[in-house]
């Protein structure tokens, strides 16, 4: 399973499953987001190995610091002695300086070796059977593409990376504009997204949960609001999610949604967004085929509620000043219809 060549019989998701899992996912999001973008709270093998190395480096450094400060304080305040200016004292001091230097050198060698050892395991996934995802950076949102044998089965998930628990995900990263950096502290360190190049990294989560990630390379106006979530879920849930994402958007379920669909297709929305199954096929902005199923909007900036979505569609510039999306001065009724439609895209 080097790629997502999964023509496997995938259980079709039932509505009941969705309604049951949604609150769980939100609860997980809430806990994961409460102070939880932290490298010392590792939830995968790569982050765990870095965290152990980090504890080693930091604790040794703290010990060194305390010793050096104690010696410095003693040197400043000790009782002075007539023998201080004798050549014998200079010899003793020389020995002390040499000893300090030798000890530092040994510690540095230990640091270097432990870093290299830890680093070797980080470049590529340890286990076989990784799933490959393309990560594409945009100002200021993320595009995650799950490839498959036929392009019609490609799945594009903006700002939300779903991964199966315990399976390494190989990420091939690049950027369409400026340099960004992919970073999920709970799972792994950073990897830059560089235009004109493909960089590689991988992540793996050992426990189900929602892990927040954020762009870590300054990329312009809205660098601060370029976040995403990694949703780690059991394999069958993941496969169900993939299967659902593969589907084009269904027919609008209500009249209101139908009207929203029409407004959407007649407005400037279609200049940038894709909704598979409709004539909207532009690729400048995030794909919206399943926007209703996502946890956040505006690249992790807001929870995906009807209210926030309405504010975002009407006036994104007040939420993310400088963002590429323009304001959409829709009639109130039209706006409500568009919201109903977008919320129905699950």
């Amino acid at each position, binding site marked *: 399973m080097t790629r997502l060549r999964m023509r496997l019989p995938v259980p079709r998701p039932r509505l009941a499953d969705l309604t049951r899992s949604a609150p769980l996912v939100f609860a997980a999001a809430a806990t994961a*987001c*409460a*102070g*939880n*973008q932290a*490298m010392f709270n590792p939830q995968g093998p790569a982050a765990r190995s*870095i965290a152990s190395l*980090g504890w080693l*480096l930091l604790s040794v*450094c703290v010990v*060194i*610091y305390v010793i*050096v*400060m104690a010696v*410095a304080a*003693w*040197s*400043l305040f*000790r009782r002075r002695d007539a023998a*201080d200016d004798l050549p014998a004292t200079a010899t003793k*001091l020389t020995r*002390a*300086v040499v000893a*300090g*230097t030798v000890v*530092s050198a040994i510690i*540095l*060698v230990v*640091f*270097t070796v*432990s*870093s*290299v050892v*830890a680093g*070797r395991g*980080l470049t590529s996934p340890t286990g076989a059977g990784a799933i490959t995802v393309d990560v594409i950076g945009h100002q200021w949102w993320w595009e995650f593409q799950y490839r498959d044998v036929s392009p019609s089965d490609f799945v594009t998930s903006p700002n939300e990376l779903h991964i199966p628990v315990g399976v390494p995900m190989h990420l091939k990263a690049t950027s369409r*504009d*400026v*340099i960004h*950096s992919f970073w999920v*502290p709970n799972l792994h*360190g*950073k*990897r*830059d997204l*560089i*235009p*004109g*190049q493909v*960089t590689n990294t991988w992540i793996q989560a050992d426990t189900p949960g929602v892990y927040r990630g954020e762009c*870590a*390379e*300054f*990329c*312009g106006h809205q*660098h*601060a609001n370029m976040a995403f979530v990694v949703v780690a879920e059991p394999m069958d849930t993941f496969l169900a999610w993939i299967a659902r994402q593969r589907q084009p958007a269904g027919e609008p379920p209500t009249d209101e949604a139908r009207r929203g669909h029409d407004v959407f297709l007649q407005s400037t929305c279609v200049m940038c967004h894709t909704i598979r199954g409709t004539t909207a096929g532009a690729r400048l902005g995030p794909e919206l085929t399943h926007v209703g199923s996502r946890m956040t909007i505006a690249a992790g*900036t807001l929870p995906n509620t009807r209210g926030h979505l309405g504010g975002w569609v009407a006036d994104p510039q007040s939420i993310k*000043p*400088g963002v590429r999306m323009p304001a959409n001065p829709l009639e109130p009724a039209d706006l409500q219809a568009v919201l109903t439609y977008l919320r129905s895209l699950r």
Partner: protein
Amino acid sequence: MDHSGPENQRDERIEPQDRYELLPDATAESRLHQELARTWYVPKGVIGWFSVVDHRTIGKRYIVTAFSFFGFAGLLAALMRVQLAVPNNHFLGPDLYNQVFTTHGTMMMFLFAVPVMEAMGVYLVPLMVGARNIAFPRLNTFSYFVYLFGGIMLTATMLMNTAPDAGWFSYVPLAGPDFTPGKRSDFWAQLITFTEVSGLAVAVELVTTIFKTRAPGMSLNRMPLFVWAMLVASFMIIFSMPSVVTSSSILLLDRLVGTHFYNPAEGGDALLWQHLFWFFGHPEVYIIFVPALGMVSSIIAAFTQRPVFGYTALVLALVATGFIGFGLWVHHMFATGLPQLGLTYFTAASMVIAIPSGVQIFCWIASLWRGRPRFHAPLLFVVGFIAIFVLGGLSGVTLASVPFDLQVHDTYYVVAHFHYVLLGGAVFPLIGGIYFWFPKMTGRMMDDGLGRVNFWVLFFGFNITFFPMHILGFEGMPRRIYTYPAELGWGTLNLVSSLGAGLLAIGGLLLLVNVVRSYRFGAVATDNPWHADTLEWGTTSPPPVYNFLHLPVVEGRNALWDRSEDAPVVTGIRSDCREVLVTDVMDAEPSNKVSYPDPSIWPFLCAVVTSAFFIGSIFTPWALPVAILPLAITLIGWFWPKSEAADAPGVKKPLREVA
């Protein structure tokens, strides 16, 4: 040798010139003074102000200018701390915030840190090596004005809301023509040109001054550690700055005339920028930090009244830092996906550079152990430096580790780290150095009591501001974000940090108050109030225009402490023209004499034309052809030979004007 407290008993201010005038008119000393004062005159009047070629005048202007930029960039930092004090703040929008943090970084690095260290060198090095002036004095004047105009340009863009906003590192393609339209990044690129031209000029002057104009007897192994530090830093400037001038110039070409050096779509390379920039950018950290190490050694020697322990080890450590500093640049790029084997080399090199730093810290602690510390303000700043810098150095060692760096890179952990090494490692010694050398520069003592208060306010302010940032980094807060959501729980530590920044600002203000008050009302300083060992303390405070009435001959490593009762002086140097003694590189044996140029308005005019050209080329490539003619005119004026009469008599005809 043990000496307690500054000698400032004399309450009447005596100008150094007047001191000799009090002597009987007929004495040889008085006649010599009058002739030297006439020869090495500092021109007066408006035109005179722009024509000065005297290293002390230019040095002081440099220092005051650099500290002005420090103040301005510090205010920008305060704005950032206000913005980040609470989550979801709307004090500064993203546009303004990005300009503010870019200008803060750019100004601190290019207009404060490097220039202020060079400025201290411009003022102190000629005095410490016993020279009458810096080598290439007109170039020195030129460099100051180029630097000043560049700084004014950046300040103006900030005040006009068109400041650069792609970060002080200005990564492409973000800073390229496609993603930063307008002129913001062009201002940044040309600011680099301004500061690098002036920085390179000063580095060349300092190397020449140190290598060729040391007092006889000051062989390399007797050179003060501060002079060694300036020598190493100057060489680092000479080897690193061409790299950033290249990178910023081709950025300007990409933006102005449509080349594609950095455009991956046309075969350019976005990472090329990072290699060129950090090949300069990492040595730059040491360019800032190495002179500060020299200041630390000077202060420790004076305030323990002992030579610094381990002179040879300290010199070797400085030189080693200078070399290894060039092998670290990739540790800024660990996340870019370079091959693992290469990264391992840079990990090892980044670890190795901790050894010379460690040796220096150990030697200073040994000096403090052996000496008799006198806790005046300058020594307090050095002790604070040790406490802060060791922490910053250790966090730097952790950053050398690739895996650890992948997590903390571009987080507030790094922000904490480099403020510990730059503010703690360089600015604390610098402020200590200001307290230390202020009497020499102005002839007045700074208030020591206020100085100690100043130290503690800065020390606590600094640690409260920057220590919490380590933890913010562990909690996942990236750098360069203008706001953050409340749910991530970063609010409390950010608020603490912002309050600390307030204390830091008060510390800065106390320094300003102390400087201004002491300048006007401070106790009059004697020649050597600290009983220090280097040559600058062997002349009056402030020094006369010609620095030394008799050029000194050095008899030991600690020039003034080792000076014998009947110390020899240099004779045979003419006092009726600006003749100086040239000595050889290794042993400072006299080799020949040259005549330094007189004051001239041309270097200033040349700086004006150069600056107009740099600013013009932001807008049009035609600036170059237009500037060539006026540039040629000013250079011809600058290099116009002295008249025969000016240097007429002489045993050996002075060499051509050194300019």
